[in-house]
């Protein structure tokens, strides 16, 4: 055996984490103590929306089937695929159709990105409905969570609008006529119907103005609105006392002490 211990990649990484530069960026350091784990949440700008602790029953799969998390997951996939799609898409008529065709034949990974975006969109609409029904049948809308339910309904509408505006962007027959039918329904609103129809399309028919408006709605306004309401939704969960749990729901996580430290960590 060698006289001095050989260093491996993990040791170099740990040394890196002890440098001043690293410590200036990631202040709380790593460790598996309860304090470290709490700090990992509380010191993180994105994660400190969540509480550092949660009731054990909230993590049970059979309670929620993780539908809310999965809906948010599809939203993340849609953003991650949608932004690259914006690099090759011109929201003008008829270039939009040519660009969509290009995704299938010309752009590297274009077909995959477009497919993933489309199927994730369908999945998100399905999941958001499933999430709503699951929350309802659990009774998780009851006080003090009423307002969060309303936020959820708003998010449902935003999801449907996102899907609807995105549907027009390929500018094919499917898109054009689906949106024509849909916007004509909007003109059926009494009194204001025609005005709404005109403002929605930026004109009297589905044409270049409509495409551009739907593009701006789909890529900028509605995603920002969704992010805003998702943030409020998560915040309200926390402030209303965490996820609702039935008395009868099992605590699925095996009981284990959170304060044990593996021997290796204690040496650091």
């Amino acid at each position: 055996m060698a006289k001095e211990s050989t260093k491996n990649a993990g040791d170099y990484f740990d040394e890196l984490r002890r440098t001043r530069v690293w410590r200036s960026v990631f202040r709380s350091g790593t460790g598996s103590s309860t304090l470290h784990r709490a700090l990992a949440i509380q010191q993180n700008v994105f994660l400190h929306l969540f509480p550092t602790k949660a009731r054990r029953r909230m993590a049970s799969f059979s309670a929620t089937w993780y539908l809310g998390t999965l809906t948010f997951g599809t939203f993340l996939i849609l953003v991650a695929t949608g932004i690259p799609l914006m690099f090759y898409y011109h929201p003008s008529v008829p270039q939009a159709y040519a660009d969509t065709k290009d995704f299938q034949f010309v752009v590297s990974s274009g077909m995959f990105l477009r497919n993933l975006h489309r199927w994730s969109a369908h999945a998100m609409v399905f999941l958001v409905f499933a999430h709503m029904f699951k929350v309802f049948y659990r009774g998780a809308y009851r006080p003090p969570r009423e307002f969060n339910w309303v936020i959820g309904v708003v998010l449902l509408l935003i999801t449907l609008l996102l899907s609807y505006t995105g549907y027009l962007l390929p500018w094919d027959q499917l898109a054009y006529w689906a949106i024509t039918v849909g916007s004509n329904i909007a003109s059926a609103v009494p009194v204001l119907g025609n005005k709404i129809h005109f403002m929605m399309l930026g004109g009297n028919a589905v044409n270049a103005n409509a495409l551009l408006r739907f593009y701006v709605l789909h890529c900028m306004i509605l995603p920002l609105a969704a992010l805003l309401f998702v943030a409020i939704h998560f915040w309200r969960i926390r402030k209303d006392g965490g996820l609702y749990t039935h008395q009868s729901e099992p605590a699925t996580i095996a009981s284990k002490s959170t304060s044990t430290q593996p021997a290796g960590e204690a040496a650091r």
Partner: protein
Amino acid sequence: MAEEKKIEKAETGPDFDRRGFFVRLGLGSLSIAAAGTAAFAYQFLSPNVLFEPSPIINAGKPESYPVDSVTLDANSGIYLIHAQEGFFALSAVCTHLGCLTAWKPELNIIACPCHGSKFSVFDPKKTPGQKIEGPAPRPLPWLRTWVSDEGDLMVDRSTDINPMQFVRV
């Protein structure tokens, strides 16, 4: 020989526990995924089709260019020059920062309006395109010129050639 056959089992393989194994497995897969994503992202971001005009320019019949003439095609950014020795083409894009230069016949130079670079054309003591003064770092490049099968002058904007190669018609 006999000593080498004694293999101590304890020395074979690195020692880490099950958790360490899974951590390495996880990190390894993540790095492979990240590398793959980076490769595909790079491929995705470099376009395979450009919405730009072809770099090959058809300059027309040689007869339309009188001797000692310098003709600027602003759309494609080239000078078609019919010198005593023959035809050649210079890039009209200034080698400093990309402005479109201008032919000044009264001064017998090509001048750039942006920062004052000047290039010679018909000066017998200098190569056409050579810089006379100004911040431009390089002379105006000569572009590949040839005569097509139909007898048209053709210029390839994307290919530089060594100077003093004239096309005789």
